């Protein structure tokens, strides 16, 4: 495997490691963006109003049991004829990635807002803040740690599933594993696996650092 990594032709070019990492990150980033766009507002709404708690808990459980590989394959066959070119597998893959990432973001946001100290909310109301100001100035910052933990599991889920989507020809590091399997090249598979694992760990670390930087020190008692 060291031999595989030390061959410079494996790193550069349109199917080199660098290009695959970038592809992996782009697909994951796009999926995470849309998942946040859907999950954050719903989580904030449910946490702020307390309405629909049972619904999102049920939804999260139901989505967890759906096999991601089956979903991707199903959507590729259904959508394949609709799109031409690469969109035929990119769009279904992204849809599945978003679908898997919404529940953890949604429940993390909801749990974070619901767990905010009611005294803090009362104090803000006493200071004359309006409901929307309370939501964005008090509840959202206080909920950040749990929002980040939801974001973290969503991101890991996306990176992991984007690897699997290589089976329906999506680009990214999964290519090395799937193509390696097809060519019976175990070292390429193992190299792909190591790279995916490293990417997941690094992204996890980056989110951890981001959460340290943005969460108010008053919440973590690091004053």
């Amino acid at each position, binding site marked *: 495997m060291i031999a595989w990594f030390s061959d410079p032709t494996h790193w550069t070019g349109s199917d080199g490691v660098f290009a695959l990492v970038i592809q992996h990150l782009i697909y994951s980033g796009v999926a995470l963006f849309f998942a946040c766009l859907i999950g954050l507002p719903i989580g904030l709404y449910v946490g702020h109003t307390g309405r629909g708690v049972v619904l999102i808990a049920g939804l999260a459980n139901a989505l967890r049991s759906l096999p991601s590989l089956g979903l991707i*394959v199903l959507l*590729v066959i259904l959508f394949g004829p609709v799109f031409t070119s690469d969109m035929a597998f990119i769009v279904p893959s992204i849809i599945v990635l978003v679908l898997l990432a919404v529940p953890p973001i949604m429940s993390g946001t909801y749990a974070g807002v619901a767990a905010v100290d009611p005294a803090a909310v009362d104090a803000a109301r006493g200071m004359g803040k309006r409901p929307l100001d309370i939501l964005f100035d008090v509840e959202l910052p206080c909920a950040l740690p749990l929002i980040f933990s939801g974001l973290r599991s969503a991101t890991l889920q996306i990176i992991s599933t984007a690897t699997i989507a290589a089976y329906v020809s999506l680009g990214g590091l999964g290519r090395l594993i799937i193509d390696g399997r097809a060519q019976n090249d175990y070292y390429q598979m193992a190299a792909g*696996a190591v790279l995916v694992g490293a990417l997941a760990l690094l992204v996890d670390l980056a989110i951890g650092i981001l959460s340290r930087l943005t969460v108010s020190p008053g919440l973590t008692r690091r004053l």
Partner: protein
Amino acid sequence: MRFDWLYRESGRIAELFLWHLGLSVIPVVIGLLLALPLGWLAQRAGFFRSTLLGAAGLLYTIPSLALFVLLPLVLGTRILDPMNVVVALTVYALALLVRTVSDGLESVPPDVIQAANAMGYRRLPRLFVVELPLAVPVIAAGLRVAVVSNVSIVSVAALIGTPQLGLLFTQGLQLRFLTPIIAGIVLCVLLAALLDGLVLFAAKRMTPWQPGGAER
């Protein structure tokens, strides 16, 4: 849906279903058996807690397909050996359940432990008779997550060729044929619901004092 195809293939589908069942359940059982002592250790000792939970979090970060591919290097097995899948899923279940067991034991009220001490329970009997039964609701909640996500992760192993329902997905894509894919998804969801219900039922039977629990 081509029901005639399902009927013709029902023998093979049943066989894949049983494989899927085994690959989902066995790792969770092994994971729980390992997590009980480790979670207990993590809950008691602060040093173990941060190291064990940190290591568990790290393992949980590694994508499943990567773990399936890398384990043959570690275990010396062949890539097609179902053992790789069992070990990988055991690792995931263990990583999740260590935290759950430790949280569960943490959730036992200190008053109860003091009462047990006053009644003369020694450490180990107290653990088995008092603390673990009271930790059942929290442990069961973690077990449900572990079992349901396992059912979904097992199907990924189709990409390296291990027999289970995921093979219906790869077959469906190769043939551009929806019936096996839909059948596979439905069976996976059913299996997850079944195992989830089983854990829920067992937990209720074990905690008759809980509201909505079984009659004494």
